[in-house]
C-alpha cells in the first residue's frame, strides 16, 4: 500500500485512541458527579460515619479524583475492570461471556440485515419510482417507525405464542449446541434486523441514485449494459463509501443499542447486564460497560472511515 493511505489510516487510528481516552474521562467524571459514593452504596442507609470512613480509606476513595481515574484507567488497560459492588464478582469475567453473547446476536442480525438492506436498496434503484421501489421503502420505513419493543412483542406473539416455532425467551447457556443457540436468538435477531433495515436500505438507495446522475453511468448505458449491470458494476462501487458509513453506524447500534431488545427477550447480553446494574447503582459495572460500548462505537466508525479511504481509487492509486 502506498504512503498516503498509510498516513491517513494512522491518523484515523490515533484520533480514535484519543477520542476513547476523552470518553473514558467523561464516563469517569459522569459517575463521580452522581450523589453518594461507592462506600455509601455498599453499606447502605444505616452505615455509621466511622464504618463509612474506614471503607473509603480501604477503597481509596479519599484520594483525589485524578489519581483514582488513572488507577481505574491503568486497571482497564491491563484487563482489570474492577469488581462489581452488588455481587462482588470480577467484572471482566462476567462481562466476557455477556459481551460474547451480545456480539453473537449482533453478528447474526448483521449477517441477515446488511446484505438484505443493500440488495433491497439495489432493487429499489433498479425499479426506482415504480411500485416495487415504493413497496420496499414503505415496508422498511414502517418497520423502523415501530418501536423495537413493539416489534419484539409482535414477533413473540406470532412466532412464539401462536405458532411456537421459536422460544419467546432467548436464554442461552453453556453446553447449548450451535443450532440451539441460533434458534434461541432467531426472534431478537429478527427484531434487530427490522429495526436497522430501513436506514441502511434508504441510504444505499440514496447513495446509488446520487451516482446514477454521473456521466460514467450514461457511458455504461450506452455500451449496452442492462440496467441492473449498470447499477451493480458502475454505480455501486462509487457509492460504497456512504454505504459503509451507514452500515457501520447500524452495526454499532446492533451492539450498543440492543438494550431494549435484550430485555424483552431476556437475553443474557451486555444490555441486560447494564440495565440490571444501573438499577442497583453499581457504578464500576456501569463505567466498564459504558467504556466498552464507547470502544465498540469508535472502533466501528474508524473501520468505516478506513474502508471509505481504501475504497477511494484516488487514494489507493495516487498519480
Amino acid at each position: 500500500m502506498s504512503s498516503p493511505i498509510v498516513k491517513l489510516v494512522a491518523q484515523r487510528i490515533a484520533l480514535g485512541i484519543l477520542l476513547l481516552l476523552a470518553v473514558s474521562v467523561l464516563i469517569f467524571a459522569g459517575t463521580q458527579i452522581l450523589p453518594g459514593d461507592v462506600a455509601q452504596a455498599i453499606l447502605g442507609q444505616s452505615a455509621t460515619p466511622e464504618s463509612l470512613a474506614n471503607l473509603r480509606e480501604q477503597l481509596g476513595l479519599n484520594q483525589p479524583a485524578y489519581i483514582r481515574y488513572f488507577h481505574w484507567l491503568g486497571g482497564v488497560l491491563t484487563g482489570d475492570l474492577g469488581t462489581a459492588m452488588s455481587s462482588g464478582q470480577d467484572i471482566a469475567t462476567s462481562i466476557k461471556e455477556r459481551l460474547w453473547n451480545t456480539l453473537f446476536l449482533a453478528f447474526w442480525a448483521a449477517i441477515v440485515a446488511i446484505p438484505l438492506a443493500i440488495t433491497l436498496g439495489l432493487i429499489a434503484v433498479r425499479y426506482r419510482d415504480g411500485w416495487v421501489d415504493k413497496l420496499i421503502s414503505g415496508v422498511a420505513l414502517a418497520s423502523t417507525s415501530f418501536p423495537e419493543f413493539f416489534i419484539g412483542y409482535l414477533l413473540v406473539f406470532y412466532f412464539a405464542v401462536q405458532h411456537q416455532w421459536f422460544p419467546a425467551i432467548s436464554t442461552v447457556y453453556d453446553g447449548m449446541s450451535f443450532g440451539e443457540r441460533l434458534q434461541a436468538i432467531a426472534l431478537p435477531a429478527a427484531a434487530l434486523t427490522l429495526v436497522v433495515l430501513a436506514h441502511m436500505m434508504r441510504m444505499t438507495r440514496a447513495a446509488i441514485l446520487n451516482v446514477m446522475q454521473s456521466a460514467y453511468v450514461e457511458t455504461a448505458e450506452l455500451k449496452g449494459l442492462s440496467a441492473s449491470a449498470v447499477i451493480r458494476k458502475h454505480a455501486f462501487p462509487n457509492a460504497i463509501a456512504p454505504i459503509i458509513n451507514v452500515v457501520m453506524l447500524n452495526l454499532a447500534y446492533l451492539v450498543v443499542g440492543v438494550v431494549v431488545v435484550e430485555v424483552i427477550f431476556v437475553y443474557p447480553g451486555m444490555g441486560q447486564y447494564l440495565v440490571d446494574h444501573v438499577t442497583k447503582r453499581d457504578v464500576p459495572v456501569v463505567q466498564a460497560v459504558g467504556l466498552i460500548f464507547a470502544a465498540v462505537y469508535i472502533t466501528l466508525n474508524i473501520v468505516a472511515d478506513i474502508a471509505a479511504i481504501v475504497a477511494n481509487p484516488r487514494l489507493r492509486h495516487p498519480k
Partner: protein
Amino acid sequence: MVDGKAKSGPLLDIRNLRIEATVYPPGEVPRTITLVHDVSLTLEKGKVLGLIGESGAGKSTIGLSSMGYGRGGVRITGGEVILNGRDILKGGKEGLRKLRGREVCYVAQSAAAAFNPAHRLMDQVVEATLLHGTATRAEAEKRAVALFKKLSLPNPETIGERFPHQVSGGQLQRVMTAMALCSEPDLIVFDEPTTALDVTTQIDVLSAIKDAIRDTHVAALYITHDLAVVAQVSDEIMVLRHGRLVEWGGTRQIIKEPRQEYTNALVSVHEIEHQEQQPGTTPMLSVKNVTAAYGGGHIKVLKNVSVDIFPGQTLAVVGESGSGKSTLARAITGLLPPEQGSVVFDGRTLANRLADRSKEDLRQLQMIYQMADVAMNPRQTVGTIIGRPLEFYFGMKGRERDKRVAELLDEIEMGKGFIDRYPAELSGGQKQRVCIARSLAAKPKLIICDEVTSALDPLVAHGILKLLLNLQQIEKVAYLFITHDLATVKSIADSIAVMYRGEVVRYGPKSKVLTPPFDAYTDLLLSSVPEMEIGWLEKAIKGRRMESAGN
C-alpha cells in the same frame, strides 16, 4: 461488423425525427416541449457528418437518437431511425441494448467524467466488446493496445492498467475514442470531444480522432459548436438551430458559401473591430513581482508576475488551464494573498488580504465570472441583484436605486421588464449581462473578467464582447480579461500577457505580442487555434512535426 444487414442504402437514415421532453418549471404546470422538429439526415458508411449549432439546437439529442437514447426525460416521439436497414426504435429495449456499444458507440464531451473512477481503463475499454461477445478478452485487449498506439497514447502497453484519475484530460479523451473503436462499430457519435480541452491539446486529439476515423473506415456523427473544428474532420455539415434544420451541405459549401443567414453569422462570428489603444504613462493597476502559492507555499502557481493595466484599457491574460491566470485574478483581488510582491492601485499599495482592504478599494475592483448562473443568488430578482452594490457602496434606496437599476439594465441592452425576473428565467447570455450590470453598479475602475464568454455560444459570446467594449467607451472602465480563447483576445485586447506554468512568457501591446518572431510557447498557442479552413489541421500538424524535427 454485424452480418445479415442490408448492404445497400445508407448506414444511418433518420427520417422526420421528433423528440420531446416534459419540463417542470417551478410553480407551473408541467408541459411538453419539442426539442427536435422533424429532422431528417442520412449518413453513408465511412463518412463523417458534423452536427453544429448553439446549445439547445438539439445536436446532442439527435446524435444520441442514433442509439435510441434520450437523456433525462427526453423521448423520441416521432419518425424513424434506420440503422443498417432496420428501424431501431421498433426493436424494443433488448434490441437497443444489442446495438449500443456494438454497432454504435459514443464519445462524450468530458472523458474525465465519462470514465468510471472505480475501474481501470482497460476494463472499461474492453467492456462493450466482451459484453457483446465479439472477441475474447485477450483479443479485445490486443485490439485496445493497438488502438492506444494508433491514437499515440504514451505507454500503450501499460496505460490500460491505470485508473482514470492517473491520466490527463487529453489522454483520457483519446482513450475514450479507443474505447469507442474497440468494439469495431459502424458508427461513432462524437459529442463535443475536444471542447473541454486546451487548444494546444485539442489539436493533438483532433488529429488522432481524424486519423483513427480514416484508418478504421468507421462512420461518425461529429457534434460541436465550433465550426472551425468540425471543418477539419467532416465530409458534410448540418447546421441546426432550436431543434430545426437550418442548412445541410458539403463542408466546403457550408464554410465558404453558406446559403442561410444564420450559417453566415456562425461563419463570420469572430470578427469584432477594435482599435488598439496605446499604453498610457501611468498605469492604474500594477502587479509587481507577485508570487503566490497554494497549500501553505508548497505549490507555487504564480512566479514573479508583473503586469500593468492602464485606465480604460483591456489587458488580456491568456494561457491554458493550470497556467495561473485565474490565480492572478485571485491575487489581485486579495482572495489569495501573494507571498511576495505587491499590487499597486492608483498609486497606493493595496493590502494583500481581502479582509484588510477598505470598502472603497473593494468597490474599485469588481469581478465577473465564467458561470453566471452560480454567481447569482437564485432566489433574488434581477432588480435585487443589481441593486445590492448600489445599496452597499452608495447607500441608495427606494426610487433612486430603482432608477439606477433601470439605467443599468438599459446599458446592458435588457429592458425594465427584467427587474422582477429570477435568474432561472434568463438565458445564459442574459445572466452574464446581469452579472456585468452588477459589477458596473459599483462604478469600478477595473473589472476582472474571468472566462466570461467561455460557457456561452459563439453568437451570444460575440454579443457580450461587443457590449463590454461599448461599456468601456461609456464608463471608461478597464478590464483584466482572463481567457483561453485567442479569438476573444484578438477582438478586445489592448495589451496581452501570455502565461505558461505560472509565469508571464510574453507581454506587451497586442500588435507587438501577436507579431513574429514568437517565443516557442506563444507560437504553439497561436498555431493551435483552429482556423475555418479545410486542411488547416494537416498543415498545423505538419508545421509542428517539422519544427520538432528541426529543433
